[in-house]
C-alpha cells in the first residue's frame, strides 16, 4: 500500500493542481490517502459487504473531497475528507440498511436452524455456535442474534386473577391418576433395581412426601447429597423405564 505522510503545503498544492484539471495530481491525492480510506472502511466491517467494494465507494468520497475542498479555509484536508468518505459509504449502505432487523434476522434464523440439523447429523453431536457460524459464513454474533432478537412488543394484556388460600400443586390440579412423574406401577418395579439407600431416599421423597432436608436428617447426610443422589436415581429410573418400554 503506497501511503506516506505528505506535508500540508504539498497537499494544498496537489489539490490546487487537481482542481484545475491535473489528473496526475488527483491520482497522487488518492494514493497518499489510501490509508485514510481504509481506516474508514474498516469501521463498516461485518455489514455483509466486500471490503474492496466499500473501498471503491470510499475512494469516490475522497475524490469528491478533493474536488470540493475550499482552499481558502484553513482546515486540514483530512478533517474535511473523513466525513465525505463516511458519508459516501453511508449513502451507499442506506437502502439496504433500512431493512428492519426483525426481517433479516428471521431469514438468518431459518438458515441457522437448517445448519443446526445438517451439522448435527454430520458430526453426530450438536454443533457449536462457531461451527454453525463457519458453516454459514456469518459471524458467531449473528448466529446468536438470530436465535433471539427483535422482540416485538406484545399486544394484548391479560388480567391476573389473585387466588386466596393455600397454594395448590399441579399434582392436585391434574385430576385422574397422576401421582408424580412416574407411573406408580412402573416405578415400583424400577425401585427394585436400586441400591438400598437410594431406594430409601426415593421412598421417603415420593411416597412419604418428605422434603430433601427431612430425608437428609433421617439418613444422616446433607441435603445437597440427597439432592445429588435423587437426581442420579431419577435419571437411572428414567433410563430403566425407557428400556422397559422399548422391550
Amino acid at each position: 500500500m503506497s501511503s506516506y505522510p505528505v506535508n500540508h503545503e504539498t497537499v494544498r498544492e496537489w489539490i490546487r493542481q487537481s482542481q484545475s484539471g491535473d489528473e496526475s495530481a488527483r491520482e497522487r491525492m488518492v494514493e497518499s490517502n489510501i490509508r485514510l480510506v481504509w481506516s474508514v472502511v474498516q469501521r463498516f466491517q461485518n455489514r455483509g459487504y466486500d471490503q474492496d467494494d466499500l473501498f471503491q465507494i470510499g475512494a469516490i468520497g475522497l475524490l469528491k473531497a478533493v474536488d470540493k475542498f475550499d482552499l481558502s479555509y484553513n482546515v486540514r484536508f483530512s478533517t474535511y475528507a473523513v466525513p465525505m468518505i463516511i458519508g459516501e459509504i453511508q449513502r451507499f449502505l442506506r437502502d439496504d440498511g433500512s431493512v428492519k432487523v426483525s426481517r433479516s434476522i428471521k431469514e438468518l434464523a431459518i438458515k441457522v436452524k437448517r445448519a443446526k440439523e445438517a451439522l448435527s447429523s454430520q458430526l453426530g453431536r450438536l454443533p457449536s455456535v462457531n461451527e454453525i457460524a463457519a458453516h454459514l459464513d456469518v459471524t458467531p454474533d449473528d448466529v446468536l442474534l438470530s436465535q433471539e432478537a427483535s422482540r416485538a412488543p406484545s399486544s394484548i394484556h391479560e388480567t391476573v386473577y389473585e387466588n386466596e388460600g393455600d397454594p395448590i400443586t399441579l399434582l392436585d390440579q391434574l385430576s385422574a391418576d397422576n401421582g408424580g412423574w412416574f407411573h406408580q406401577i412402573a416405578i415400583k418395579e424400577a425401585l427394585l433395581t436400586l441400591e438400598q439407600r437410594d431406594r430409601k431416599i426415593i421412598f421417603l421423597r415420593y411416597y412419604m412426601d418428605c422434603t430433601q432436608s427431612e430425608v437428609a436428617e433421617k439418613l444422616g447426610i446433607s441435603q445437597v447429597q440427597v439432592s445429588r443422589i435423587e437426581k442420579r436415581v431419577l435419571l437411572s429410573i428414567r433410563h430403566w423405564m425407557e428400556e422397559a418400554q422399548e422391550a
Partner: protein
Amino acid sequence: MNNSLTCTFKSISENEALARMIAASFAAAYDPTIGELSDIKTVVSEAVTNAIIHGYSGAENHEVYMKMSMVERVLTIEVRDSGKGILEVEKAMEPLYTSRPDMERSGMGFTIMDHFMDGVEVVSEPGKGTTVTMTKQLTSVQAECH
C-alpha cells in the same frame, strides 16, 4: 481465558429475553455446543422470571442483578433480586411446588435449573430478597470427539 460480567436491569418481563441473550453471548466466547447454550438460556430464563414474578410480584420498577463468571470452563451464574424472599427454600425447590397456580405456573423452575446445571444454590431471606447461584462445567469441543 477467564472472564466475568455483572449486569443490572429493570424487572420487566421483556428483560427475560435480554438476560438470556446476555448469558448466551457471555458463554458463546467459550464455544459451547448449541445444547449447552440452550440449557444456559433456559436456566437464566427460569431464574430471572422467578425474580420478576415472585420476587417483585410483577412490579416493574425494581432491579434484577445477574453475574456471570467463567473460570476454567466452569460457568457460574448468579441471579439476585431484592424482593420478597422465600420462606421455605426447601419446599420451593420441590418439583411441582408453586405458590402461584393462579398464574398458571407449573412449579418446575427450580427443577429445571437443577437438571440443566451441575449445581444450584438458593439463598433467600424473607423481605430481603433471593440469590440463586448455578454452576455448570462446559464440555470442551475436543474432549467430545476422542
